[in-house]
């Protein structure tokens, strides 16, 4: 019997039910905090920091001042452009607890494995009926790998299908502790050129390319490519990624994810700039040529995942 540490805690920023695209059936996604990358197109910018971050929803604020009184570091003032001075804020979350209107929200909550499983259980019947299960996402789940591993083990113990979205960036130890408990890995390969990768994501791709064979040897893996205009939407860039996928064990399917800007409004709530403001979202039909390349190599290609 494998023991599971249900009391281990980690930082979760969202649990989203009724997901249809991140593994088989109907799924619940657990979003874990912390990511080694900061991709310019990231649709979950609140996930990047391992610590909780404060979101301020201007429209919900009733200007009652309760948050100002509870802030220990004086980071909140009506004088501030975005209510919170991000430099001073320690993300302790006291203001969110005090906010009666829900205008201040702490993105990032400490939860135990047990608490996470309790939330996931709410849709257990749906997993059973649909052949679905749970998906870990982030952030990068390999950052909090011990926590991720316990959630996955506990989920397997419930008989649920498990999946994980990953950038592939993590230590060997992390990969070995997490991947064996994942039924389907959704592995992002964003670019084969380390320089380009670094420019758009904040880090090189060396670790990704080293981890890819390790991951695909252990678990069923789907390669995912977020197709971003000006970054990797050229036939050459796609071809290089697909050729790399060909060298890996057991890859059958490649997902091409057309760029979307659903995350844009979150940047404002976080007081951040969105660098791809002027990039137009792609439609599935924009990826026809890329799809042909994927299929040329004998892979099944799904647009949109």
């Amino acid at each position, binding site marked *: 019997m494998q023991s599971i540490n249900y009391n281990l805690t980690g930082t979760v920023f969202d649990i*989203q*039910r*009724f*997901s*249809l*695209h*991140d593994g088989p*059936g*109907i799924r619940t996604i657990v979003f874990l905090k912390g990511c080694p990358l900061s991709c310019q197109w990231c*649709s979950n910018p609140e996930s990047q920091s391992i610590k909780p971050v404060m979101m301020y929803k201007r429209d*919900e604020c*009733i200007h*009652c001042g309760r948050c100002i009184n509870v802030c220990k570091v004086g980071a909140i003032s009506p004088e501030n452009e975005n209510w919170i001075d991000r430099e001073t804020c320690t993300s302790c979350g006291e203001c969110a607890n005090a*906010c*009666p*209107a*829900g205008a201040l929200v702490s993105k990032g909550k400490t939860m135990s494995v047990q608490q996470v499983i309790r939330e996931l259980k*709410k*849709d257990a*019947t*749906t997993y*059973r*009926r*649909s*052949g*679905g299960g749970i998906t870990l996402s982030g952030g990068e789940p390999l950052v909090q790998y011990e926590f991720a591993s316990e959630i996955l083990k506990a989920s397997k113990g419930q008989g649920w299908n498990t999946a994980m979205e990953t950038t592939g960036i993590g230590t060997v130890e992390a990969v070995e502790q997490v991947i064996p408990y994942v039924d389907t890995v959704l592995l992002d390969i964003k670019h084969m050129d380390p320089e380009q990768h670094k420019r758009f994501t904040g880090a090189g791709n060396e670790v990704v390319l080293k981890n890819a064979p390790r991951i695909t040897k252990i678990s069923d893996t789907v390669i995912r490519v977020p197709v971003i205009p000006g970054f990797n939407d050229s036939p050459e860039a796609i071809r290089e990624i697909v050729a790399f996928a060909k060298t890996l064990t057991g890859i059958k399917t490649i*997902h091409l*994810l*057309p760029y*979307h*800007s*659903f995350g*844009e*409004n979150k940047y404002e709530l976080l007081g951040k700039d969105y660098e791809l403001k002027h990039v137009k*979202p792609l*439609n*599935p039909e924009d990826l026809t040529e890329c799809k042909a390349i994927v299929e040329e190599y004998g892979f099944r290609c799904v*647009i*949109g*995942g």
Partner: protein
Amino acid sequence: MLAKGFTEPTERIQKLKRAIVDAVPYVESERAVLVTESYKETEGLSPIMRRARAAEKIFRSLPITIHDNELIVGAITKNLRSTEICPEFSYEWVEKEFDTMATRIADPFRIPKETAAELKEAFKYWDGKTTSALADSYMSQETKDCISNGVFTVGNYFYGGVGHVCVDYGKVLKIGFTGIIRQVMEAMAKLDTSDPDYIKKKNFYEALIITYSAAIQFAHRYAEKAREMAAVCLDATRKAELLQIAANCDKVPEQGATNFYEACQSFWFVQILLQIEANGHSISPGRFDQYMNPYLAIDKGISHEFAQELVDCVWVKLNDINKTRDEVSAQAFAGYAVFQNLIVGGQTEDGLDATNEMSYMCMEAVAHVKLPAPSFSIRVHQNTPDEFLYRACELTRLGFGVPAMYNDEVIIPALCNRGVSLADARNYCIIGCVEPQCPHKTEGWHDAAFFNIAKVLEITLNNGKAGDKQLGPITGDITSFTNLEQLLEAYKKQMEYFVYHLAEADNCVDYAHAERAPLPFLSALVDDCIGRGKSVQEGGAFYNFTGPQAFGVADAGDSLCAIKKHVFENKEITMEQLKEALDHNFGDCCDKTCSATESTDEDRIYEAVKRILSNNGSINLADLQAQLSKPQKEVSGNKEDYAQVKRILENTPWFGNDEDEVDMIARRCGQIYSYEVEKYKNPRGGQFQAGCYPVSANVLFGKDVGALPDGRLAKTPLADGVSPRQGKDTNGPTAAAMSVSKLDHANYSNGTLYNQKFLPAALAGDDGLKHFASIVRSYFDHKGMHVQFNVIDRDTLLAAQKDPDQYKDLVVRVAGYSAQFTVLAKEVQDDIISRTEQTL
């Protein structure tokens, strides 16, 4: 491929459908004139005999109409989609609309001058003689006060026949009307003259024989007409068809049916005779696949295509039936709805899966005809074949909201809990909107009242007052309350008072129907009227219920949760602050309510609807005007404070997100209502049972409810049925369904109604069908009772863009990412709208 697609209907069906769609509905006078003549002739006879003589006269004299292309014949009116009038229930509102009914916006009916004159003459007789006049005379002032203050209404059966029944179509198919007459004769032969009820029973049996003899003649008149038409028909094909129709009508429903065509014709005669006898709506065909399939099975000569065409013909015919309502109700229930519920699938009486070939043919008919009738439903149980459920999901994906899906695993035990035998419960069908009953053994009185749970909460918050009137008992000033239990205790006491009066109101109307409108044609088709020797209205059915339906459960639950969190627990606002904010509608002064003279169309309509829906005569219009003209309380300088209170209240977990904290409060709010309802008995010897569904009353009666602690502004719509409040379920459809399933549906044995919205993208492809089916299965695993799906179209997305508050629950799922539609930037929304068009 899981999806099989649907075939195109035949040319005949397309023409028949076109004729229905293009028809201009008329009000016709024949029935009203005939029933009036008959009643003048039968003064002094017993009520049941008067009804029999009236039915006899109508069945023998109502005009006979056969339309082009028809294979199944029989019509209530000369013109398509037209209506007869039943003045014996009520008539005043028809008279008022003689000049305007043809030109009104919703559901217009033409009334030619001669028709109006004939009706006017007939109506003269009925002054003081209608069921509504009698019911009104029975009701206490306290009960009328509850009605006029919008706590509940019993308008449905106050103004018309009861309807809401599923009769023994199978018996007619098998033994015909002569077989029924034989049954009656046998029962009569067994009568013992020493039985104290001998005279009454003998009278009843004679009434049945008179009625059924005339009903046979009604069909024979169609045979005669078809032969006349055949004689002069130049088209050889049509001539042959007409001769076949004549042969059918000679034989059925007088005799049992021997093939599928005769079975369809026989079914149809029963369906219209019921609706000629009286005007109650929701005359539901019930388990059509169960009683029709045997005739398809024995009919070796018939092709599948012709059998399908006959089913399609029945479907079109169901849309020929129409009823007029007053101008305002017509706006509220626009679309000429008559709620003939037809259900397929489910179990046999001994618990085996009952899905058959006809079940699938009915789905095909729905896709062929694409008209509102019948209200199409399916039954789902643990052994329902996946193929059947996938097919139903495929039908839903066509996007017109059918089928509604019902859960055997909840409804069967719920009915057993009300004393229905297991075999009978397994045989249940659905009446009207969502009401389960054992067919042809039940007088369910399903639409007995609309009951406004949110109004009871509002009255509780005002210590028993509605406006300035002390309507309910004094249960304590809420500012003295310190915890949720005290509030719930007060709410329970108010509930006791209002349900007590609800029962009184319903029973007054019940008595009126027993005394003035016992229905012989209907009664022979409901067991065990013949055995007991009395009509359905007098308690002849095996199972008797009265089923009032509530709405506003989510409003009550959300409101109490908001008070618990922000007043009792976090103490962010005081009860005084809350009370004041509510009294001032959170500072939102609505100008139009301040002046009665400038009442908008909407207000005018609302008042009229209320008048119709509630008890006629009990509302003093002058009082209403006075109430309306009362100036709104002055919004003082602290308008902003009220808005702040509202914002704080709105930061509460809402029902519909799978949060026990609030779901369990909503559950209790509903249970307190339903446990109270089931304490009462009706005059037919049956029990009251609660339902939780709104038709569209949640919008109308929302106008009677002031601001609520869940942040809802005065006069805005309430939650429908068991659904979460509009736009408040933001955790996705599975979380919403789980919340809804916590309401203890088995308790609401008069039915619950849950609406879910979906985007086509979420249901696309074979995966979509599988997801869809698994959502249904898992909601039903959690003991949900009913669900129906609206597949959202582009228009909905556009509406959501305009009015984001109402659509916060709308989650779009495109390309591996999902988001609440309303929080996205406009351009992104536009993008999704254009993508949605593609997936459609």
